[in-house]
């Protein structure tokens, strides 16, 4: 299933939430949607899901504009995990999943293994009112999966979770994605968190799409410098001069490292020049820019 957004705009009275966004999500890929709060991510996700209609532009599934009936059919294969869902305190986890399975035309028995991985039997039979934030997020993911979706949309899925909870959540998501061969769209403003979970990234700001592509492509296209780390004792003016001659900038010292930003094109020349002075440092590492750096590079 290929989902294509074509020149999508959405306005609420005078406010433009999304402006002329075009984006294609390919079958089986994991697409990250990143941007600061209020950048239009959630609105774009809701348009993808048919929750709201765009003011202009088209949503195409497998090349076709969906009719009312078409949307209903498309939604059968969609799982949606909205941001911050508290669910119904008076229902158990199991009752909640049964409710949404019936609403979506799914069946709990088909997803028993996945649900079991997310929530234990004991937790499932407890009232949601007594759930922790992490349990509610797992229940939220479970409800998104009860209809065995092929297309999974997650809006800020780890918002409010601690680092351990966040890691557990992504481990489970990886496992489910692998087993069910899902197409995933994942929005987040915590960029570093989803960096390793996605195949491509779409960066949004003020309702517009600023860039789309594989992280490496974006980095190369923007010629973002690499960061070099040399482990040394004290200061070394000779190494500093060498780095400068090879075009390095932002040279400085931190926590026993001599740091510098180097142009991508000079990488090999710089390494060979530095290796001639290998007795002056005990270790060397070169780091690719993080998604965060790409993202802020675009802003």
């Amino acid at each position, binding site marked *: 299933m290929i989902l294509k957004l074509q020149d999508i705009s959405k306005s609420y009275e005078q406010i433009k939430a999304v402006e002329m966004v075009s984006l294609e999500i390919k079958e089986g890929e994991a697409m990250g949607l990143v941007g600061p709060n209020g950048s239009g991510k959630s609105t774009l996700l809701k348009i993808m899901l*048919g929750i709201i209609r765009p003011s202009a532009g088209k949503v195409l599934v497998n090349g076709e504009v969906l009719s009312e009936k078409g949307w209903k059919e498309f939604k*059968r294969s969609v799982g949606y995990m909205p*941001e911050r869902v508290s669910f*119904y305190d008076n229902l158990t986890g199991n009752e909640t999943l049964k*409710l949404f399975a019936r609403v*979506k035309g799914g069946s709990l028995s088909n997803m028993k293994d996945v649900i079991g991985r997310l929530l234990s039997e004991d937790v499932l039979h407890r009232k949601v009112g007594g759930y922790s934030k992490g349990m509610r997020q797992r229940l939220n993911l479970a409800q998104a999966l009860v209809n065995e979706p092929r297309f999974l*949309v997650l809006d800020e899925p780890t918002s409010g979770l601690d680092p351990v909870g966040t890691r557990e959540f992504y481990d489970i998501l990886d496992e489910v994605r692998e087993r069910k061969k899902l197409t995933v769209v994942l929005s987040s403003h915590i960029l570093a968190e989803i960096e390793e979970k996605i195949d491509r990234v779409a960066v949004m700001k003020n309702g517009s799409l600023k860039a789309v592509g594989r992280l490496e492509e974006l980095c190369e296209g923007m010629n973002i410098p690499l960061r070099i780390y040399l482990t040394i004792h004290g200061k070394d003016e000779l190494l500093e001069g060498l780095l400068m001659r090879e075009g390095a900038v932002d040279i400085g010292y931190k926590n026993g490292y001599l740091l510098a930003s180097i142009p991508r094109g000079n990488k090999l020349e710089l390494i060979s020049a530095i290796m001639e002075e290998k007795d002056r440092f005990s270790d060397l590492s070169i780091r690719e820019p993080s998604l965060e750096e790409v993202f802020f590079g675009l802003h």
Partner: protein
Amino acid sequence: MVFTDAMRAIAHKELSDKLKSRWVIVIGSGFALFTLVISYFGGAPAGVTGFMSLDATIASLTSLVTYFIPILALTLGGGIIADEQEKGTLGIYLASPISVGEFIIGKFTGLVIALVLSIVAGLGVAGIMLFFRTGTEAVGTFLVFIINSVLLGVTFLSVSFLISIIFYERTKVIALTICIWLLFTILYDLGLIGLLIVTKGSIGTEAFSMLLLLNPVDIYRILNFISIGEFQVLIGLASVEFPAYIRTSMLWGISMIWIIAPLGISYYYFKKRYLE
């Protein structure tokens, strides 16, 4: 429209919420208690106590139901959207393969059943008392009274859906709910009385009757007026002579319009807000 499994699931959830929270039991018991007290002491102003005749009981209960059921129904449906919005579950429903109609009808059905259970339980107590005093003769008339009361309740439930869907925010919904209740139960009739005074009664029975038919509470009063005959004075409609074409079936028809129209507008607004 076919009542789909998704609609049944939504209706079941709404009903079980009201059953689990004991809403139905509390409201039904409270209603039953009031009903018994009014049935017993309803004739006190005339110096009589004890369970009265059927007509007198219905006349007394009409006054109770007129104020009690609308506010009950309005509060019951007032939070349907705000609650889902606050819990974050509205997006899940909207991303599901169900139509706006299925969502609204599912919720409405669940709440109608909860409301009907409460009304039947509450008024049923008085009905059983009447059965023991007057035998089967009273059962039919009292059943019609219960149907009228259910129609009044469902009408205001439908209005509450409309308020909830148009205004969303809980505080706005609560404020408007109270205003709507005041308008239909008190202010509208005061306005009509004012109109009679200003026009010195020249407005005419026909026009006055028509104005009464615009208010579901007055429709309820007229329905009970028709069924109990001589005790109209207790309902406050003694001086009105209704045109012959105003019959029970016609009034039930208007009540149905009062139920369907707000639901239809709710559907339109909900769809417009999200899907257009």
